[in-house]
């Protein structure tokens, strides 16, 4: 019987200890959990748990500090990269990351985001883009697609009156202070592994003081999009990826 295989020497995958055992509050199928785990695995594999300080945003991942077993600070809405700047400037030898959603990073925090990247702060920004304000109940986000429905664009985003979705990652890639900018996803095993490699690269660049690294993770919001998790992943592939294509946007020369 296959149960005989359950022995320590046969272990190939288990939850990393850099994630706590707390049950995450995220909705079923939400990409946050996977994105958390990929980053936690990177911290684990690099052996930097004791040198890492994270910054949680306001949004669905506001409680990320319960799940990452590293020292963390909770920032005001949109201010995570300013808070991270404060940390990194007094602790240049530590690894500092922010974990932010699209509303936090690309709407209320646009100035802080762009200026931190433009200064080339040696931090990692993990940017979860699901095109919606999840925590507050599914309102239109800066990254909501044209025509996409939300509770504040119930007839779909009308770009003529509501403005256009903001491709902030592409903007950041143009800044001299950004070093490595990439867009990933975590909805399939292959994509999640690629995202993890990107996060690992970013942390390694941070060690070398190369500048700001931003890893965008295009993710789903089953509750906000009003779909099942599996449907939401399919919808994401069909609708989000054409607008937010996956892949590296800025790679070291």
């Amino acid at each position, binding site marked *: 019987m296959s149960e005989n295989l359950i022995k320590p020497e046969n272990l190939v995958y288990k939850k990393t200890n850099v994630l706590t055992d707390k049950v995450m509050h995220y909705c079923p199928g939400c990409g946050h959990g996977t994105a958390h785990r990929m980053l936690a695995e990177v911290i684990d594999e690099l052996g930097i*748990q*004791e*040198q*890492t*300080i994270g*910054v*949680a945003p306001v949004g669905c991942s*506001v*409680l990320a*500090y*319960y799940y*990452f*077993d*590293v*020292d*963390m*600070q*909770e*920032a*005001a809405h949109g*201010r995570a990269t*300013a*808070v*991270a*700047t*404060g*940390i990194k*400037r*007094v*602790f240049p030898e*530590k690894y500092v990351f922010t974990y932010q959603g699209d509303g936090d990073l690309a709407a209320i925090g646009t*100035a*802080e985001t762009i*200026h931190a990247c433009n200064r080339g702060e040696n931090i990692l920004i993990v940017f979860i883009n699901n095109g919606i304000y999840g925590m507050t109940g599914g309102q239109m986000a800066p990254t909501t697609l044209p025509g996409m429905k939300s509770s504040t664009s119930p007839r779909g985003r009308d770009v003529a009156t509501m403005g256009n979705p903001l491709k902030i990652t592409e903007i950041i890639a143009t800044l001299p202070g950004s070093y490595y900018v990439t867009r990933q996803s975590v909805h399939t095993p292959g994509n999640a592994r690629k995202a993890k490699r990107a996060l690992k690269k970013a942390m390694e660049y941070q060690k070398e003081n190369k500048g700001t690294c931003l890893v965008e993770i295009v993710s789903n919001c089953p509750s906000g999009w009003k779909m099942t998790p599996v449907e939401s992943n399919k919808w994401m592939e069909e609708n989000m990826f054409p607008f937010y294509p996956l892949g590296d946007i800025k790679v070291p020369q």
Partner: protein
Amino acid sequence: MKELRLMKGNEALAEAAIRAGTDAYFGYPITPQSEIIEYLMHENPYERTGMVVLQAESEVAAINMVYGAAACGKRTMTSSSSPGISLKQEGLSYIAGAELPCIVVNIVRGGPGLGTIQPSQSDYFQAVKGGGHGDYKLIVLAPATVQETVDFVKLGYELAFKYRNTVMILSDGIIGQMMEKVELFEQMPRENKDYEWATVGKKPGKDSVIVTSLYLKSEDQEKLNFRLQAKYREIEKAEVRFETIMTEDAEYLFTAFGSCARITRKAMEMARAKGIKVGLVRPISLYPFPVKIFEELAPKVKGILTVEMNAGQMVEDVRLAVNGKTKVEHYGRFGGIIPSPEEILNALEQKIIGG
């Protein structure tokens, strides 16, 4: 070694910041306090002590950088003037909720709105009543001289770390821009302490440190508020600071803080020369407010005139302290107008003695 220098208030404050072992200063230019960051950039304190000085993209960013560095247990400071301090209120509320120590300097200018770059005291309410959302207090120190400005930086860190609270140095364009003789304290070392509440990297075998102002459960939120209120009561007991001048035989009292107290002192001297027995109470800590001295003196005097460069703010705290035991009136000029000693004396005669 102590050192005597002739310095502008803002520059002296910046020098004091370096000497007090500040780890990080985050600022943004605004008149009339830009000399602080200019002096720091010119002095290059990173070379002198390893102190970080960064010009942020906004006052909002600067106060959030303060949050980040303060939560690492570092001596952290920012400075601004009124419109910029308004922008920092969000951060100050979060810093209060997360119980972090820092110094925030407000070189007050006239408002509301963009107002004027001339000196004012119209941010008194904002400073002593909290300023941002939620029940919280800043320890507010109001210097009347360049010397006090310098001394309050050192004292400010002591209080900030003792209570894990923001200390605001509430000054104004007069003190910030004037040159005075000042004795500088000796260079203090930058601390390199690991505080148990600070994010310095998770310690093996210990829980990770979380710095947050979020308590979703009402019971936890109330617990935080009880803790804060207990801290404020302790501060109110232990950290009251004020100065009294010629109050022993006084039949009348002036009260004024900061730069305005200097002018009022002149008015007091003019009154005394005319035979009017008037004294001066100068609150130095605006929060905690020196309630007891007013309780003590109120029954002994015929009236109190508060003199402020605003439309009447501290007068409310004076009235609360006096609690009806004597007449309390306010005299103020605002919008950047500095009252003259003559008009202050005139106000005393009209509003208190004659009124």
